[in-house]
């Protein structure tokens, strides 16, 4: 499948390293396990993009960091180290870090994987609220159909290296495409086969050989 990836009208494939870095300053990314800097405290982690890209005073940085931490509900955890926070909390800190520079686009890599139901709904609420409050665009990569369909505006199914289907969540639920039905319905067998390719059963178990 071919095409272009346009960000703010610019084709990403044509950018050199400098241009790529300039574009990334308007993006935030949330990695699957947070990817927090383990040698820095929660506060320092969120302050990192501010210190690197801006010349703001310490007082301003402190205010901004505490605001971002407040948005994700972790203002009280500011002095903890990443090794001292739980997985769900780490991801929320990473989210605060991703929104530190008020980006136009945030990308989430499996934000719901491995979370308990409470944290999962917290994460989903945060993603939706931040999206509307800050007026940004969010791209969520996920396997969790239910949570994602609750918050998504547009769904794109990727399978076998191509876009299999796209549309609103309601359209996806009503879709007749067998691949989409298998995924949305969580069916064990369908276009994605249950059995790994193997020789026929008769050959392996000698059924019908000595009749």
């Amino acid at each position, binding site marked *: 499948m071919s095409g272009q990836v346009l960000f703010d009208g610019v084709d990403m494939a044509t950018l050199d390293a400098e241009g790529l*870095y300039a574009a*990334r*300053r308007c993006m935030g990314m949330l990695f699957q*396990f947070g*990817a927090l800097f383990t040698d820095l405290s929660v506060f320092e982690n969120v302050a990192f993009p501010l210190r690197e890209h801006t010349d703001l005073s310490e007082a301003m940085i402190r205010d901004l960091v505490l605001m971002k931490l407040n948005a994700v509900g972790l203002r009280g955890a500011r002095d903890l180290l990443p090794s001292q926070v739980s997985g769900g909390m780490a991801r929320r800190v990473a989210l605060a870090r991703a929104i530190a520079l008020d980006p136009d686009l945030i990308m989430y890599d499996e934000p719901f994987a491995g979370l308990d139901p409470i944290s999962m709904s917290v994460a989903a609420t945060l993603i939706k609220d931040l999206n509307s409050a800050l007026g940004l665009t969010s791209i969520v990569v996920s396997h969790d159909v239910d949570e994602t369909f609750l918050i998504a505006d547009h769904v794109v199914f990727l399978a076998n290296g191509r876009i299999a289907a796209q549309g609103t969540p309601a359209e996806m639920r009503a879709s007749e495409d067998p691949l989409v039905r298998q995924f949305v319905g969580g069916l064990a067998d369908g276009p994605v086969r249950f059995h790994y390719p193997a020789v026929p059963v008769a050959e392996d178990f000698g059924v019908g050989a000595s009749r």
Partner: protein
Amino acid sequence: MNWLNPAAVGLSVRSGLADIGEGTRLFFRLVALVGATFGRMRLVIDQLFFIGNRSLSIITVSGLFVGFVLALQGYYTLQRYGSAEAVGLLVALSLVRELGPVVTALLFAGRAGTSLTAEIGLMKAGEQLAAMEMMAVDPVKRVLAPRFWAGVIAMPLLAAVFSAVGILGGWLVAVPLIGIDAGSFWSQMQGGVGVWADVGNGVIKSAVFGFTVTFIALLQGYGCKPTPEGVSAATTRTVVMASLAVLALDFVLTAMMFSI
């Protein structure tokens, strides 16, 4: 790798060359970043603390014992020729010219080199370097360069401390313990050790070793596989490659500097 398969041999030679090329590019990139790195001294100072200060204890203790042994062994051999007074000169020259830079570099590779490799490798495994790139911060500039220059600064200082402590250790064994005359201990040393020829060359050697060991440690960490096995293989490679490089460079530098 099947040595009889020409395609496999060619492929591995080619990928080996590509690795060397990539390593060279990284080295020149780090050297070129000297201005930007020293513009952010706080990062360099933090790294100097982890690399330099934390290595002081092992360097000092090793230097002391090497000095003890040199004085002892030197005395046993020299007194056979009636030149026991020259033990100070022997200890000082051995340390300042060779043992100071080389042993410090080997200890540095084992202590600071492995910790650098493991740290960078684990940062890579934990996606921290990728996160930095996504935040439009160049990991080479922010993480590698401060560590590189801190290592380059720390090495000559550590080697000097090693040599100085070794000489004091030699004095401790030679004068109070064995009973050699303190005056001739120091005067023979001062007569035979040239400041620029010996001490200066020793400092140059340790600076070159600093470049080498730190670079190898950073390269292995940066290019390792982000798995536990990958990190452990990278730390082993750091120690082995750094030690071999130091010994080979020592020969080359000695030949260049001390040939008359």
